[in-house]
């Protein structure tokens, strides 16, 4: 491996890149619409980032460890559906109150955990390509939620939903719960990635799993843990998601997986594994959410072209952070 004489810059483009892209977007948004930097809009953007964001933090670990998970969107839909079914079913016996909410939350966490474990099992124990396993489970969960909802929408009982809603809309000190939970997940994730044995092991496995194995790292277990953790975070995201609209259908969480993966990569984590950073993922998620937000706040472009603008900005955000000599 010959390496060029790399005069390593102190602060690299890969760090500045995503931040610069985010700032550029914020400036653009502020110029286009005075309400853009208003507390309401900021709160909106942050809370809606929370779902994908919480999932993307988990995805950062999976990708850092050399894996991939295409099933998270469907999994979220399925978990949400299951949670609603369980809560509705328990309503007659438990009544509206904290216990039933806790039951729902537990259902989501357990379901996410099991779903993540299943992916992890197929990938690490049976040794099937992660792309295929999760492509398969993506189809399976999507189908299951359609089937649970009988093709339609699963709705939380209205009274229950009103009771549960503060979990999305409420908060402390004017900061809504999704934002708080997102922040907690990010901080824990960042610490885990940087300074925990687990994070270090993820990077080692993604970098070279043979080396990790020869260094007595429990490769299978760590890899499994990344999927389980992602599943669990999908559960957490679902807990925040359900009170928002109180429903789940086959169109819930469509393309979340792509968004989450895109956020991770925009943030500077390597798709092939070996290096990940959680703060980058957060920036990636914010960039993605802001694009949509800004497009909604202006009329410059035909709404038909929203996707094109989004695509362009995603590519540009990554162009910014390229520092290594291209291609070869």
């Amino acid at each position: 491996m010959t390496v060029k004489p790399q005069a390593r810059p102190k602060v690299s483009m890969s760090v500045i890149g995503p931040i610069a892209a985010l700032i550029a977007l914020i400036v653009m948004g502020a110029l286009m619409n005075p309400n853009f930097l208003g507390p309401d809009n900021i709160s909106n953007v942050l809370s809606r980032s929370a779902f994908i964001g919480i999932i993307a933090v988990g995805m950062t670990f999976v990708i850092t460890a050399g894996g991939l998970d295409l099933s998270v969107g469907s999994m979220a839909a399925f978990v949400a559906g299951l949670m609603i079914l369980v809560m509705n079913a328990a309503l007659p016996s438990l009544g509206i109150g904290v216990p039933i909410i806790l039951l729902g939350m537990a259902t989501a966490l357990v379901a996410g955990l099991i779903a993540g474990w299943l992916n992890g099992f197929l990938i690490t124990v049976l040794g099937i390509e992660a792309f295929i396993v999760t492509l398969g489970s993506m189809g399976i969960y999507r189908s299951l939620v359609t089937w649970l909802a009988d093709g339609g929408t699963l709705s939380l009982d209205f009274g229950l939903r009103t009771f549960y809603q503060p979990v999305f809309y409420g908060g402390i000190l004017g900061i809504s719960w999704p934002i708080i939970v997102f922040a907690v997940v990010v901080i824990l994730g960042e610490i885990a990635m940087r300074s925990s044995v687990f994070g270090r092991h993820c990077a080692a496995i993604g970098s070279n799993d043979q080396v990790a194995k020869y260094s007595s790292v429990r490769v299978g277990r760590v890899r499994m843990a990344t999927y389980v953790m992602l599943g669990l975070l999908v559960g957490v995201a679902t807990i925040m998601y359900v009170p928002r609209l109180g429903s789940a259908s086959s169109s819930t969480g469509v393309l979340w997986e792509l968004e989450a993966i895109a956020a991770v990569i925009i943030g500077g984590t390597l798709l092939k594994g070996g290096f990940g950073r959680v703060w980058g993922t957060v920036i990636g998620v914010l960039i993605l959410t802001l694009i949509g937000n800004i497009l909604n706040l202006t009329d410059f472009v035909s709404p038909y072209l929203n996707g094109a603008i989004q695509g362009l900005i995603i590519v540009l955000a990554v162009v910014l952070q390229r520092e290594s000599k291209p291609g070869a």
Partner: protein
Amino acid sequence: QDTKVIGVSIPAATHGWAGGMNYFAQAAIDRLEEAYPELDFVLATASDPGKQVNDIEDMVATRNIDALVVLPFESEPLTGPVQNVKASGAWITVVDRGLSVPGIEDLYVAGDNPGFGRVSGEYMASAMPDGGKIVVLRGIPTTIDNERVEGFEAAIEGKNIEVIGMEHGNWNRDDSFTVMQDFLSRHPQIDAVWASDDDMAVGVLAAIEAAGRDDVKFVLGGAGMKEMVKRVMDGDTMIPANVTYPPSMIATAIEITAVGLVSQAPVSGNFIIGSVLVTPENAETFYYPDSPF
């Protein structure tokens, strides 16, 4: 005695209305299979026009269908393939979206998309006689959506109603929630919302409620989702009306087709199920508590 096979090809349940339609199709089939042992049904759901064509080809090649009930994903691409089915001698029932060449179908059961837009527009105009500022959420970019919006725009023409924002909510609760939130941050004054679909209306209502804004007087959805009809019936001022576009039309089409096959009764023709304005006065007749939609 020989069994006859009816093929039913519909789009997959990717949004609320389609979900309701799927439910009614399945329910009609279950009911008819019970009632007519000599009938056999094949139900296929497709997530894109290409897949729908595959489904229809398979029904002809492997199931020897005697009749086809099709709700085309899109008109253009399905026209040729349905024409081929017709050429094989099968009975053709087209639902909701007409084919681009007239005269292929034996039976046409449809909603009225321009009418849906028109009724909605007219209601908007009448509810806001002094005019007002509204925002519009559109569906998935398709011909249907275009027809509805055109109908709507034609109806509010010259009525002093100003459309201050129009974005795609994709017939999706989450998307419409997001879009509505952003509309609310962008426009300090919004008098009413045409959500154009009940799923989108759910998202819109949630966004308004969360923002605590009281400038929005009402939200007009559409398609006759039971929760929405119930709110109309209960006199909810936020949901003063609804416009029907019944997903159950697929069941009607399947039933008529089945009857035609077993009884040779003359059932061909056009059944246009007009879009009706649901108001607190007539809401009861549109309320089906057992439907999933």
